């Protein structure tokens, strides 16, 4: 069976900036595949290439079995796309937006009405279909975009940061719709996110940093590969604490999110020893099981928030150079 997405030695340069630096991966049909990384890591660029909106500088990408450069239209017929920013016409009603989409994709006329009802009921907007999109809330707009992306029954659905800018409650509900969708439709989902907790919903995750894939596996396997608990402490003298941790316990600690952070096999057993032996006063302690955040940290040497801070400038440079396409 041909993979839903297959990418080989893909690169993309914007002038001097290398947004994607030679990535390879495959996504199986029916899989939910997550692209995880900080803003500016190259996620959106990769998705643009896969959706035929940007040409790769080198390398190849195939989606639904078709080359994204040479068979652009065939790829477009087979994909649905939910962009990071809304791409709805807010002067039209929800139904008119979907009708526009259906006509543009040349959907058979007889299929329109039933499919409209199906996708709108799936995202809980059937009753609001006659409302002008400008009156929709942020969550409703995102749901409408998901419905629209599904309208022409694509084989691969791309979701670029499907929950960014939404409140936590709405984020949860968007994920309910996505998980529900996997039950109902025979579809491959490719998504990008920089929320670790959301990546857990994926069958497999690729961690991308500085335009390269640094790890690719199931969330469970990735977490198991880290295997350690993360301990974060706040102390009266952090540099002294870091030195003491190295001297007393042979641990390599660093500052992350303003806290002294390190990993140990069994956090809850280590904390009493820490209090007994650390010569620096401890103000607070937190111990956490390995999360994808730790996975990210163990592969990139920084937390995703640290990575974002450093990526912001790079991102801004890209944004100003290329505008909103």
């Amino acid at each position, binding site marked *: 069976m041909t993979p839903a997405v297959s990418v080989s030695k893909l690169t993309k340069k914007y002038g001097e900036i290398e947004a994607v630096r030679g990535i390879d991966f495959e996504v199986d049909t029916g899989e939910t595949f997550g692209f995880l990384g900080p803003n500016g890591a190259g996620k959106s660029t990769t998705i*643009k290439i896969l*959706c*035929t*909106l*940007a*040409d790769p500088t080198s390398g190849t990408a195939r989606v639904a079995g078709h080359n994204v450069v040479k068979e652009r*239209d*065939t790829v*477009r*017929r*087979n994909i649905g*796309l939910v*962009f990071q*920013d*809304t*791409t*709805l*016409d*807010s*002067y*039209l009603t929800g139904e*008119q937006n979907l*009708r*526009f*989409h259906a*006509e*543009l*994709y*040349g*959907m*058979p006329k*007889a*299929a329109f*009405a*039933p*499919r409209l*009802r*199906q996708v709108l*009921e*799936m995202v809980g907007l059937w009753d609001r279909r006659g409302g002008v999109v400008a009156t929709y809330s942020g969550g409703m707009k995102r749901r409408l975009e998901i419905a*629209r992306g599904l*309208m*022409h*029954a694509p084989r691969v659905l791309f979701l670029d940061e499907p929950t960014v800018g939404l409140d936590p409650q709405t984020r949860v509900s968007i994920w309910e719709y996505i998980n529900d969708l996997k039950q*109902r*439709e*025979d579809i491959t989902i490719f998504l990008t996110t920089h929320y670790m907790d959301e990546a857990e919903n994926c069958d497999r995750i690729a961690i991308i940093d500085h335009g390269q894939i640094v790890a690719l596996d199931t969330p469970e396997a990735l977490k198991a590969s880290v295997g350690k608990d993360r301990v974060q402490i706040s102390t009266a003298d952090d540099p002294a604490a870091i030195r003491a941790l190295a001297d007393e316990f042979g641990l390599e600690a660093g500052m992350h999110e303003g806290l002294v952070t390190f990993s140990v096999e069994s956090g809850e057993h280590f904390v009493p020893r820490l209090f007994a032996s650390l010569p620096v006063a401890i103000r607070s302690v937190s111990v956490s099981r390995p999360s994808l955040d730790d996975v990210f940290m163990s592969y990139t040497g920084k937390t995703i928030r640290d990575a974002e801070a450093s990526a912001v400038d790079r991102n801004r440079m890209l944004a100003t150079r*290329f*505008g*909103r*396409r």
Partner: protein
Amino acid sequence: MAAQDTAPRDTLDVGEQALTDMIRVAVPERSLRHDLRAVSIVWRRELIRFRSDRLRAVTALVQPILFLFVLGTGLSRLASRGLPSGVHFETFIYPGVLAMSVLFTAIFSAASIVWDREFGFLAEMMVAPVRRWTIVVGKCLGGATVATFQGIIFLALAGVAHVPYSATLLLTLLGELLLLSFTLTAFGVMMAARIKQIQAFMALTQMVVMPLFFLSGALYPLNGLPTWLTVLTRVDPLTYVVAPMRHAVFSHLSLSPLAARVLSPSITWDGWLVPVGLSLAMVAAMGAVMLAIAIAEFRKTE
């Protein structure tokens, strides 16, 4: 094709059954019919948006009405000395102001492309499996339709400017308005292809629109002008629509041929008379060239 067979049956079921079975939708291979559907939906969207924006329709009429009635009436005392008796100054400027009534709407309708880019909707169109020309042509047709509609409202006011309601005259003017609207929209779309910010687009069009209008001979006859102004009027595409429209209006007034020739002179190139047909064909050709440039701009990918 088994999936296709089951699809209609699913659609008849109401409620849960219809929802649990996925409705198969086969997106067809690209064809001319598909392209035309895309043109049509882009066009219809422009009309829907115009319908929901009545304020725009009203405001776009304010300026030509000001020109025709306020400026026209105000200047008519002064200008009437130069006009044969029975010819009103309003009648003289009516064709030019009619062109103006579509000028703004046509060029500004292209702003919706810049708008769509800012609000992301352009991306929805760009990723669809359709040829880019369908989107550009649909936009131009939409803008042209809306602008012509604007012109029709103004056409209804012909009597107030002492222009006779003759069916042939109105149809001629309508055809010329349609042509003008399409060319102007194509011009706007061509500019919108490159411009990313709405403010920049508005500023640029403002800068372009007024010279286009003033150089078109909308407010004065084209003969006996100083050389520099003669050259500039001959470069302005609007001239090639205003002159035929004025020609049509004056041929429907009972005037001596001499008076008609003085007030509504044909366009000349260094003494050579440009026929009305050629003049309109040039406008159409300009529209086609600008449309082609706009399409080429939209074909580019990152």
